[in-house]
């Protein structure tokens, strides 16, 4: 399959153990110069262990076995010191969350400069020139004097990229390069990474995001619970998968979601009239109006920092609008509006059993416990989970429990703030489907806040796009008939 002379990195029968338990593998792959491999898997699939095993940075309690060859040189048999000598020179890594990978007390420029100076061993002046050239080519001009804490996620990523590749290592391992970045920025990261194979290097990218994998191309390797389930050219694997797991993973993509028609009622449950919302003296949203009907599903989208969450909290009555009015339907109880949160464990008292939290709610509202267990079983929550504390239950299960908790008080409106952004794709699809069904069956109006346009398009009946304040307001492109062109955040001073 590969021509030996061109092979940049090859991994054969790589396994990672803790004690006698296999956490990862066996996995095999070969990447040629100018080639690219995307390792795809859900959280906990052991993807990061692969990078650590190749580098030799596994935690002390873990052990790797297998054959790792870089440019014809065996790595796994090298002494740790000799292996570390290849870092930055032969093997570069782009770490997860670049913010935390840059020294918080050192400005950007010296962090890249030191790599040119001490890894490439250039004299100080040439290293300076090389650093300036890197900053220029990555569009980082002006960022030199800033500390990592003052950089945006995308800029920190580029600084980390510059530092990692300064010494010209021909192989780049990138671990979840899009983690913590808005979907809008994913394209920029992909094109940054694509420079590596174009320049004749080899690239290994680890991601959980099918869309990113699709953009990157190259070869793909699908991991499930540490085992390799499928391998092949990315386009082939992602178009005609051969294993059930890959199929399920692909079907979880919002583009493939089954659309359901809403049971829309004429009764309006919430009316917001020309709202003005400001935070910290800055006007975020001006002249926003919304009429929400029972059973309706509305999605609010927009880039981060545009005020989506603030808008949601204002609708919930948690924040006062700077101007405008919000009216609820008279039939709604004070607890008629409930909210779902991005990080399910943070939505429950951390040290109390879930059953205790749920019983509190039931008791206060005079709801029989049997009714609560009934709701839970309808949402497919196993009762034994309630004996645990929030930190001991998976995110998907916990999000369903928090939906059940909200349903206990019979709300008319459910507000959801990125409820699935921390969940795996399959769990995400199931959760959003569940919400859609509940909206239909219980006639609950739902407002979803998300940064992911694909989810908004697949799930909502109506979309409201908030625009960054600098950009003149424009209604969402009319491609989707469900989009309501009236709603849009307007630019303001």
């Amino acid at each position, binding site marked *: 399959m590969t021509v030996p002379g061109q092979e940049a990195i090859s991994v054969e029968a790589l396994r990672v153990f803790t004690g006698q338990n296999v956490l990862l593998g066996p996995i095999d792959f070969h990447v040629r110069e100018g080639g690219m491999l995307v390792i795809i898997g859900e959280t906990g699939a052991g993807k990061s262990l692969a990078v650590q095993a190749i580098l030799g940075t596994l935690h002390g309690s873990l052990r790797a076995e297998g054959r790792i060859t870089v440019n014809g040189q065996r790595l796994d048999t090298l002494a740790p010191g000799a292996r570390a000598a290849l*870092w930055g020179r032969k093997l570069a*890594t782009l770490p997860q969350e670049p913010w935390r990978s*840059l020294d918080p*007390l050192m400005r950007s420029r010296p962090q890249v400069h030191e790599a040119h100076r001490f890894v490439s061993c250039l004299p100080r002046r040439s290293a300076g020139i090389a650093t300036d050239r890197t900053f220029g080519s990555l569009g980082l001009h002006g960022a030199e004097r800033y500390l990592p804490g003052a*950089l945006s996620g995308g800029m920190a990523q580029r600084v980390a990229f510059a530092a990692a590749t300064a010494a010209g290592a021909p192989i780049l391992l990138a671990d979840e390069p899009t983690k913590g970045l808005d979907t809008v920025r994913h394209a920029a990261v992909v094109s940054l990474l694509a420079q590596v194979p174009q320049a004749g290097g080899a690239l290994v990218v680890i991601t959980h995001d099918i869309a990113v994998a699709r953009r990157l191309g190259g070869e793909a390797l699908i991991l499930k619970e540490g085992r390799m389930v499928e391998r092949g050219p990315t386009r082939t694997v992602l178009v005609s998968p051969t294993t059930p797991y890959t199929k399920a993973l692909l079907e979880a993509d919002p583009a493939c979601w089954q659309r359901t028609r809403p049971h829309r009622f004429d009764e309006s449950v919430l009316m917001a009239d020309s709202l003005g919302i400001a935070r910290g003296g800055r006007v975020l949203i001006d002249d926003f109006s919304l009429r929400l009907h029972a059973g309706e599903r509305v999605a609010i989208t927009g880039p981060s920092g545009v005020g989506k969450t603030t808008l949601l909290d204002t609708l919930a009555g948690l924040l006062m609008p700077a101007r405008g009015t919000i009216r609820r339907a008279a039939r709604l109880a004070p607890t008629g509006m409930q909210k779902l949160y991005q990080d399910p464990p943070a939505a429950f008292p951390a040290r109390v059993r879930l059953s205790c939290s749920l019983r509190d709610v039931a008791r206060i509202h005079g709801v029989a416990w049997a009714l609560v267990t009934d709701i839970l079983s309808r949402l497919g929550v196993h009762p034994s989970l309630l004996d645990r504390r929030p930190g001991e239950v998976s995110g998907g299960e916990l999000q369903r429990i928090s939906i059940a908790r909200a349903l206990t008080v019979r709300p008319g409106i459910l507000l959801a703030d990125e409820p699935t952004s921390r969940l795996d794709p399959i769990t995400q699809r199931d959760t959003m489907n569940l919400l859609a069904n509940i909206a239909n069956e219980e006639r609950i109006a739902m407002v979803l806040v998300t940064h992911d346009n694909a989810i908004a398009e697949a799930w909502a009946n109506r979309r409201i796009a908030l625009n960054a304040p600098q950009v003149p307001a424009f209604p969402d492109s009319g491609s989707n008939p469900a989009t309501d062109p009236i709603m849009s955040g307007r630019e303001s001073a």
Partner: protein
Amino acid sequence: MSSSILWRGPTVSVPFHGRTDEHSRTVIAALAARGLQAVLVALIVGIFSFVMMQALPGDAAYRIAAGRYGYDMMDAASAETVRAELGLDQHWTAQLADWISALAKFDLGRSLVYGTPVMDEIAVQLGHSLLLAAGAVLASLLFALPVGVAAGLRPGGLVDRASLGLSVLLRAIPFFALGILLILVFAIRLDLLPVAGFRGPEHLVLPSITLGLGLAAVSSRVVRDAVTDAMAAEWQLFSRTKGLSTRLTMFRHVLRNAALPVVAYVGVQLAYLIEGVVIVETVFAWPGIGHALVHAIFSRDITMVQGTALTLGLLYVALNLCIDLACRGIDPRTRAAGRTGPRS
């Protein structure tokens, strides 16, 4: 878990006076905050001293006269002299106003017992106390830095566990008990070092070690945690994987990052240091301000109490200010604050 109060507090944690949540403060603001603290110190000490004066049992004038001239030499006339001199016959509000305004003019008055100006006494004692404090901080760093770094580089290793056990035991011995033990062993049993007093540099050794050991018991763990945290940080690993050697990573990244919590903790320890100086000076009869304070309380020499407590309080504020400035020096984030980054 907390700031310092009295001898030893809980292990580590929230820095004193919320130093960290004030990243964005300018130097001026830092100076102003410490200036306010200094004024507060003066007011608290002044009011307390005034209340002490009022609380003197019996006729204060007679007591003071007795203290000053001796019981044999004292009579009604000398008591009246004292009364007039100290204004003891005015209404208490007027006396308090006088008292505070004298303080505002840095007029600390005369010792009620010796009749000498308090300022002169303090001028001599302050040097001795500063010497002891410097010796103690030096000793604590000499213990804490090597032990803490060695423990932090191999967490869970032999040095780590041994130093942890030692730290737990040392923390349970109060300064003065530690002083007694050191005196018994080194000065009396082994006859290596002088017991007490201050005549030469060798007299500095035992008190400094007493205080230094007590401080190092906690600060060695702080150094250890700082080093462990820095070594486990993602930026440390990234510095290695981008190709920098262990040594370069250590000098260019780890040291500065690990120094920050350690220096901040020295600030937390200043309260122990001041308290320790008071107690250890008394144990070793060290002629410093702390000893003078305890002696003054014992002999009810209230102007002396006020002068010494005020000096110690202001010393505390001044040292805190030094730590504030040192933290700013180490941490560029405090200086960069106020200028927003290119968050695009």
